[in-house]
């Protein structure tokens, strides 16, 4: 392939120029034409086994498989001409002879490429009158079940395990009409990234056990989001039904996660649906915390903090916007900001350099660092006598009772903002309930310094509000004149105040993100620290 040489082709009457070596299928995407395909997937090596992508090329005797044929100068390609359509119709008829067409009970229904293409260009009926082949459902281990009757043998799953995960536990067993996807007795799809075969499967042959029979795909609301479970920042779609998140799936981003998501991230979404959420602001009245309105509660929080240095223990899963607002509070009052990060084993996806389930199991560790928060194992250690303690969405799980009691005794006041109310938080003067990441929008900064937006997927419970808005009100109550309670405004202020984010705009981040400047240095939190 010569570097930079461009090839001109015409696809469905649209002239496009693509780099030499581009496949017809990819060139057609540039022209805005979808060539039907099954075995081809941009994240996998080309196999050319399904023949669904046949197209007609002028002056060529035979139809060409678009996924496995590079464009040549001057080619005129027809995707929807009669010969191409007839050929693909034949492929579909063959695929369906043994296919159960049990769409009404198939989880893939509604997002199934076999359904879509059959509807678009398949035959009205089948000419096949024999009994259909039958094979029983098989548990492939991990999160995956295999329904062989629905399999179209595109081998995407086999190639993913072999070429991307480098753990080839799947094979094509048998041959001809007996062929099925097989695995070896005792070796399961337990690779930490194996769940991706469920998305890669174009039909309902590989299904997620977690999602099995949970929802029909057309009932789901989908929001662009970022996986909150480690610092890699994989792009996701959060899918919810009736205000409950039911599935998290990868959203392609060439620069971060390609097309993939690890199993740990994928399956760790239930906490977004926690039922033990705090729905109202609370203020201490005598011995107990009592529900209160927001105005009253914000004023009480400001009163508790005013005139004191503040020690902020923040969750590194909070957005840049919330952390920035907290940094503003520290800047006003003086004090320190710390966070701690839950750890887990690292799990790289070998076939994609730089993609790994990271040891830091929180989304915004880098953002917290860049905004001046300090990583620590002992978040309460820096609390000085007479300081106010502000705990932001950190349950302090695992902290022993003695150190919590000591902290409570040391702190002049305790203010808690968060989603839940752990038992130690009963000592708080004020509790402000905030939205979790699925209930607000914002940005995270991933391990590589990439700032990425996530959108709201569901409504927050009760009176809980996004953290950036609650903290914006708190700042106002503390005398700050620049009222920023909209995420884009907060981000603008953040970008203006913190050099690594300089020049970025909330809108400009789009859904692909942008990377902080390479020399990014963490900010000093406050003059007083």
């Amino acid at each position: 392939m010569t570097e930079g040489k461009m090839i001109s082709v015409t696809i469905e009457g649209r002239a496009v120029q693509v780099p030499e070596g581009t496949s017809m299928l990819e060139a057609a995407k540039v022209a805005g034409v979808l060539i039907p395909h099954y075995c081809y997937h941009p994240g996998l090596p080309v196999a050319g086994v399904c023949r669904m992508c046949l197209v007609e090329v002028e002056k060529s005797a035979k139809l060409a498989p678009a996924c496995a044929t590079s464009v040549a100068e001057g080619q005129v390609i027809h995707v929807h001409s009669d010969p191409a359509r007839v050929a693909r119709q034949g492929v579909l008829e063959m695929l369906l002879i043994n296919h159960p067409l049990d769409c009404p009970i198939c989880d893939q229904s509604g997002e199934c490429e076999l359904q879509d293409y059959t509807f678009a260009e398949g035959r009205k009926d089948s000419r096949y009158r024999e009994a259909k082949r039958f094979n029983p459902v098989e548990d492939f281990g991990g999160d995956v079940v295999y329904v062989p009757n629905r399999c179209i043998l595109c081998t995407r799953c086999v190639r993913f395990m072999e070429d991307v995960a480098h753990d080839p536990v799947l094979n094509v067993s048998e041959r001809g009409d007996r062929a099925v996807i097989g695995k070896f007795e005792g070796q399961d799809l337990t690779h930490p990234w194996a769940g991706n075969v469920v998305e890669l499967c174009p039909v309902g042959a590989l299904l997620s056990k977690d999602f099995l029979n949970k929802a029909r795909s057309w009932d789901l609301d989908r929001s662009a989001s970022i996986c909150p479970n480690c610092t890699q920042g994989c792009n996701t779609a959060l899918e919810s039904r009736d205000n409950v998140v039911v599935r998290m799936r990868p959203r392609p981003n060439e620069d971060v996660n390609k097309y993939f998501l690890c199993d740990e991230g994928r399956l760790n979404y239930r906490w977004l649906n926690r039922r033990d959420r705090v729905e109202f602001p609370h203020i201490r009245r005598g011995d107990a915390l009592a529900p209160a309105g927001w105005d009253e509660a914000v004023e009480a929080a400001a009163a508790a903090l005013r005139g004191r240095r503040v020690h902020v223990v923040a969750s590194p899963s909070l957005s840049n916007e919330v952390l920035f607002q907290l940094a503003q509070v520290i800047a006003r009052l003086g004090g320190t900001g710390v966070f701690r990060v839950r750890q887990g084993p690292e799990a790289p996806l070998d076939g994609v350099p730089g993609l790994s389930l990271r040891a830091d199991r929180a989304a915004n560790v880098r953002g917290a660092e860049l905004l001046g928060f300090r990583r620590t194992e002992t978040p309460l250690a820096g609390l000085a006598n007479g300081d106010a303690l502000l705990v932001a969405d950190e349950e302090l799980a695992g902290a022993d009772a003695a150190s919590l009691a000591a902290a409570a005794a040391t702190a002049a006041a305790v203010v808690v903002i968060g989603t839940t109310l752990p038992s130690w938080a009963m000592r708080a003067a004020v509790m402000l309930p905030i939205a979790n990441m699925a209930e607000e929008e914002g940005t995270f900064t991933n391990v590589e310094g990439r700032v990425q937006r996530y959108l709201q997927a569901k409504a927050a419970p009760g009176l809980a509000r996004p953290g950036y808005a609650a903290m914006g009100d708190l700042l106002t109550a503390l005398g700050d004149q620049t009222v920023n309670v909209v995420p884009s405004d907060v981000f603008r202020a953040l970008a203006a105040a913190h050099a690594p984010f300089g020049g970025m705009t909330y809108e400009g981040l789009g859904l692909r993100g942008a990377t902080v400047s390479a020399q990014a240095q963490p900010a000093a939190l406050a003059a007083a620290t």
Partner: protein
Amino acid sequence: MSAPAGGPSAGPRLTALDRAPRADAHERDENYQPVFVNARRKELDELLTRYPTKMAALLPALWIVQEERGWVSEPAMAEVAAVLGLTPAYVKGVVTFYTMYHQHPVGKYFVQVCTTSPCNVCGAEDVVRAFLKQTGASDLGATSPDGRFTVIEVECLGACGFATPVMINNEFLESVSADRVPSIVGALK
């Protein structure tokens, strides 16, 4: 410190191996006796010198197993995978692709009768029936109660001019008719 940008940190790594401790399958089966020891091992080593990669020697290695054991069991597939540096799943895919590797035990005499069209019109079906009757095998693919015979149909054996050809293990018989079958089977008993 956070992980260095761009690369995984040097921490504990979660791999498939951690999650599913997988001693090679043949090692988990305590009663399994490896094929590739002593003379068979030497045979394999000698074989490997003739191929560019270990993977390329998969088919002949499987033949050695079948010669030695009569069929290729799952633990045997795992052993082949281990000696050739492949995964058991890959080996199983190959074994199941080719019908000439037996995935179940077969009789001492493995009888393959051509029943493709030319032989069929010359009476191959009668030959098959005669073999089933004489050997006592209940059905195609089933092994006779004495464990000596398995009879199957095969596609064209390339001797259409000499219908009906029959292969018994590596012996090739031509122009077999139903009435010759008793003497053929008798000679083997």
